[in-house]
């Protein structure tokens, strides 16, 4: 029972960071109709920037995060404005490959600057642990859950409660129509990239805080967020958040309880297995919408 409870809580904590990364994907998808394969590299860039500022330059942790957000969000907007938008062939394949190219380039830049040896993040929580009954979590993970909930709530407020959110949803559902009624589609699209940058840095912080560390493999967490994204439905931010939590819990439960006949490392594919089953039943995810077929 305690093991189960612990697994659920651990899953929730890892799932909440997946949720942030998946939300980053979803927001960009709604704005630009592309899966941003560079999201993992943006997560990595965020984590390295925070670590570099906090440890090598003694910038206070919060300030380091804010600075990193400024850099990564600006970078995302610039990438969209100077490269992605200029793509003359508007097919989805080219957009995807362009984000992949960004990912390759960014990873190489990071490796040149920092090498591949692990670094600490420079977070203030260190090895602190929070225990409730038989369940315990590193303090960083508890903060991770809390901040993720706050960020998710802030996003939902922005999305549902403000003019900008309305504009975002309008241009997501029909760019031409939105343009026609005066929605500043390009500005909205830039905003989505900025939001993706914010989410990448915050996700990066909680993926690399103790007991994890900052290493290039962190970008693979973006892979783990794919099933979360699809589970919820590509164009559904709330689906991405829900999907992230589900995937985190599935992964830890599978890791804890995988029977030996399933072989090694079943936990790494369990989220994908769940995703495939759900897609068989609902081809556009749990909360996604079927795009209208036009002729």
């Amino acid at each position: 029972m305690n093991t189960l409870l612990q697994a659920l809580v651990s899953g929730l904590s890892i799932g909440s960071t997946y949720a942030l990364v998946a939300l980053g994907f979803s927001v960009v998808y709604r704005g630009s109709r592309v899966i941003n394969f560079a999201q993992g590299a943006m997560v990595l860039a965020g984590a390295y920037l925070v670590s570099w500022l906090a440890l090598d330059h003694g910038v206070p942790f919060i300030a380091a995060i804010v600075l990193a957000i400024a850099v990564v969000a600006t970078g995302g907007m610039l990438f969209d404005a100077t490269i992605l938008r200029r793509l003359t062939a508007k097919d989805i394949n080219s957009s995807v490959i362009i984000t992949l190219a960004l990912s390759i380039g960014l990873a190489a830049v990071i490796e040149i600057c920092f090498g591949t040896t692990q670094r600490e993040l420079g977070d203030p929580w260190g090895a602190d642990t929070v225990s409730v009954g038989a369940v315990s979590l590193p303090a960083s993970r508890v903060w991770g859950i809390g901040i993720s909930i706050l960020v998710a709530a802030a996003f939902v407020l922005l999305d549902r409660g403000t003019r900008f959110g309305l504009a975002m949803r309008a241009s997501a559902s029909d760019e031409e129509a939105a343009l026609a009624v005066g929605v500043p589609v390009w500005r909205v699209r830039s905003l989505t990239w900025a939001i993706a940058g914010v989410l990448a840095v915050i996700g990066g912080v909680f993926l690399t805080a103790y007991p994890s560390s900052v290493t290039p493999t962190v970008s693979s967490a973006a892979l783990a967020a794919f099933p979360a994204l699809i589970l919820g439905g590509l164009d559904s931010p709330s689906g991405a958040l829900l999907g992230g939590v589900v995937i985190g819990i599935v992964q830890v439960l599978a890791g804890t309880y995988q029977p030996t006949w399933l072989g090694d490392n079943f936990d790494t594919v369990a989220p994908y297995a769940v995703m495939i089953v759900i897609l068989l039943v609902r081809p556009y995810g749990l909360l996604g919408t079927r795009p209208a077929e036009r002729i």
Partner: protein
Amino acid sequence: MKVRPRTFAPAAVLGVAVALILGACGTTDADTTSEGGLKGPGVDSSAKTITIGEISALSGPAESVGIPVHDGLETYLKWFNDNGGVDGWKIKLDARDSAYNPQKTVQLFNELKDNVTLLNSFGTPTTAAIRPLIDEQKLVTGGAGIDWSDDPQLALLGTPYAPAVADLVTYVATEKAGKDSKYGIFYQNDAFGQANLAGYESAAKTLDLNSVSEVNYKPGDTDFSAQAAKLKASGADYVVIGAISPNAASLIGTAGSLGYEPTWLFAAPLFDPVLITDDGTATGKKTAVAPLIVGHSYASTYTTPYDASSPAPGFADVEAAHKKFRPKTPINANFTYGWSLGKIYTAIVEKAIADGDLSREGILKAKQSLGEVDLAGLASNPTYGTASAEPPSRAVDVAVVDDTAPGFLRVESKGYTSDAAASLKPSS
């Protein structure tokens, strides 16, 4: 104009025909009998230089080990040439970057093979990809992170992964642990991790240990909550770490947050000083995970830890060369390892020159008749003979992890070996 339905069908027929003709041709064994004497691939007798090829991880996921090993090797060879070389011959290093990628390693091997006398390779998956090519070339190859095998060409240094684990577990089980202690292992699920597992299982079987948990992870995983919980639930008192340092740190930290603090066992060469301080040196900032390791962990090693304030004997040359050629890179276990590799390669070349044969066969014969190579205390001396399945050593130094000791390792037992290590056989 006449309708001319051009098709490529004739070309297809042609293609098939070419394939069939090729199929009808037979290949024959290449003529590999090379001329004896002071001639051979990679030997330039007019300039009196001999080239050692190197394919190493100078970038990519394994660069944190690949680069210092390369630095150590390069520094040694510079120092060696600076001191006159051997018999007027100088040794050149032709280093290439594999980025730890097997495909690239094959390409680079093809680039190098005709122009090198010896090869220094790095890594298990990369060296596995060129093993048939090394065999064909009869090219003597050494390096770090190479899995142990019965190839006569391999010139390894130190104790292979599996016996190193077996020795460490045996030492701890017989000298430290109680009768009813429980054991477990956490390993990366690939060739390297599985070699660790083989050593662990050999020790567990030989000593009839109570092995309660074997957990693994996929390379690239970043969260180890499930693995930590499983180890905790199994109640293992001693846990072998068959994982690279970022993953080891993450597992140990996660376990710590669950209130689970067993004794961690790091078999050579897995104990990495960056687990203890941020830059791996005595002056660096302590890591958050250090308190969970220092004091209740053991490590095995085959290179002597370096302490700048009171270096062990044998480090005099290293320090002198380091100061002259590479003052900026720190001396650590990997640097020492690369340096020692250089000593072995030059010893082989010296022997071959003395025997008057620098051909592939001459180099291989020199390696097989080399006997013990004196590493001046930097690492346990390896022995090379004709028994190709025998590794250069099955012994390790066992140390306690201690943040006041050089390299954070306080050696408790030198040259320790075990029955479990002796019974291990190389992978074919």
